């Protein structure tokens, strides 16, 4: 395709807790890092899309980066904020609106679990008051049913968390850098069985930004561009098992992840077997468990064996969440999807240090999923 778009710069503010900096300051830091990586300046940027959930407006970053008059669009798509911003920048570049675009996500959440308000979700007060409106509960209920239907045991949940913290320990910018033993995870507090404390990620802070341009100009800026082969976002259909649902339909339908994944593979003209390195949404062990199959990397039920055999480790056949994922990095909602893209770019450039996937990875994959039933997938290729 002669209309392809490439990532020419990546930048992050490390995830975790940075008391001295606002979410917007962390977002601006990420943009500056990405501009430096691309060897350009903010005034060279022709369009920007960005967002946060709790960190304020993205277009206010211009107050720190420079008031250059560029079109800067705020994106608010929950966990798919980064993915939506990226897809929008790509469309803007492909349309000829700008030569260079920036996608940025950042956030700064209060400590502890999210506490959503029923009315914001079109629900009545009783749902929250009686103790049913918790994301952790939803993940547990969905995971329990999935394990029942596909014959999976708690062992798989422990191994996902263990691998995340093992990879996090190899990742200099990760938040949680201590490896945890199998027993520490398996015996940690029962938050919402079958999910335990160390099987959940925490809300966090951080920023992530990308600089993109038309692939045919990419080598003007960098020796190692990453081509975006697909960037797809989809929302739920009737019958999908989503968060904050007092009732589920009689007939289940495929998740938004399945629709986004299929469309992305079709756009890119490749299949799951071609992918060398993978990032999957792992707000909790159960979600990653389900997402391995929903994204086409195995059949439902095969995860138990894949995880136990080490196939999803950095040296395995299907390296998943090489930087420790959300479990080790925390989840600043606005930034999380772009962190995944940055990790894949780092792997495809061969710059991932101790966590580098062996060989010469050529194709990478990212996947986010979140409330109220959205998913965004990218397929990335070393340029």
């Amino acid at each position, binding site marked *: 395709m002669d209309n392809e778009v490439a990532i020419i710069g990546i930048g992050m503010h490390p995830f975790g807790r940075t008391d001295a900096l606002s979410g917007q300051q962390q977002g601006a830091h990420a943009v500056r890092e990405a501009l430096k990586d691309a060897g350009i300046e903010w005034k060279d940027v022709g369009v920007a899309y960005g967002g946060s959930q709790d960190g304020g407006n993205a277009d206010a970053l211009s107050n720190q980066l420079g008031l250059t008059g560029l079109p800067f669009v705020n994106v608010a798509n929950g966990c798919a904020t980064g993915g939506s911003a990226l897809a929008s920048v790509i469309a803007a570049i492909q349309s000829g609106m700008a030569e260079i675009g920036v996608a940025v996500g950042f956030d700064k959440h209060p400590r*502890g*679990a999210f*506490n959503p*308000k*029923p009315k914001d979700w079109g629900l*009545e*007060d*009783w749902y*929250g*008051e*009686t*103790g*049913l*409106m*918790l994301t952790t*509960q939803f993940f*547990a*209920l*969905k995971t*329990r*049913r999935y394990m*029942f239907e596909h014959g999976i045991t708690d062992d798989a949940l422990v191994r996902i968390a263990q691998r995340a913290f093992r990879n996090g320990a190899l990742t200099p910018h990760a938040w949680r850098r201590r490896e945890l033993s199998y027993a520490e995870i398996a015996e940690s*507090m*029962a*938050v*919402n*069985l*079958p*999910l335990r404390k160390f099987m959940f990620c925490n809300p966090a802070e951080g920023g992530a930004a990308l600089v993109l341009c038309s692939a045919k100009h990419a080598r003007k800026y960098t020796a190692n561009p990453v081509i975006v082969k697909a960037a797809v976002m989809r929302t739920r259909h*009737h*019958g999908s098992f989503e968060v904050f*649902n*007092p*009732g*589920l*339909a*009689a*007939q289940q339908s495929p998740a938004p992840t399945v629709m986004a994944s299929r469309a992305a593979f079709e756009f890119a003209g490749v299949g799951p077997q071609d992918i060398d390195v993978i990032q999957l949404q792992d707000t909790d062990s159960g979600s990653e468990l389900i997402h391995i199959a929903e994204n086409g990397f195995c059949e439902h039920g095969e995860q138990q064996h894949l995880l136990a055999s080490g196939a999803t480790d950095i040296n395995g056949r299907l390296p998943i969440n090489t930087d420790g994922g959300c479990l080790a990095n925390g989840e600043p909602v606005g930034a999380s999807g772009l962190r995944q893209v940055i990790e894949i770019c780092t792997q495809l450039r061969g710059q991932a240090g101790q966590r580098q996937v062996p060989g010469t990875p050529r194709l990478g994959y990212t996947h986010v999923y979140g409330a109220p039933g959205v998913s965004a997938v990218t397929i990335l290729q070393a340029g």
Partner: protein
Amino acid sequence: MNLDTSPKLACPDLLRLGGEHPVLLGSRCTDCGEVYFPASEGCTRCCSTAMETFALGSFGTLWSWTIQGFQPKSPYNGGEAEADFQPYGVGYIEMPSGVKVESRLTLADPAQLKIGMPMVLVLLPYRQVPGEAPVYTYAFAPA
């Protein structure tokens, strides 16, 4: 259920009382027959707005479950002190229409909860604050 006066309910519109067991109320699309809980003003399956009240019944089977292991933040209003919080069961109950209803469970013991077990609708005093009338919600108990 022996209650001297009519119970204070967190969600009165969801329940029909007076029979041997409480009955859960939802809605059904008169165009395509899809059933909703709680009642919905429109059908997300066929996009119709022709909906009628539908009684989901009092009996179902356990479709999935978890134990709420920590005290939820507001808007939860169980009213107990943090130190007094007791984990509670939560599940989806598959009703005869096939719709699954999210509900508090009367049990919170993993050893006693099995997917597929028969369940019956009851009222549960989920908020019990001294000096106040208890507030009830719907819940499912083993049948």
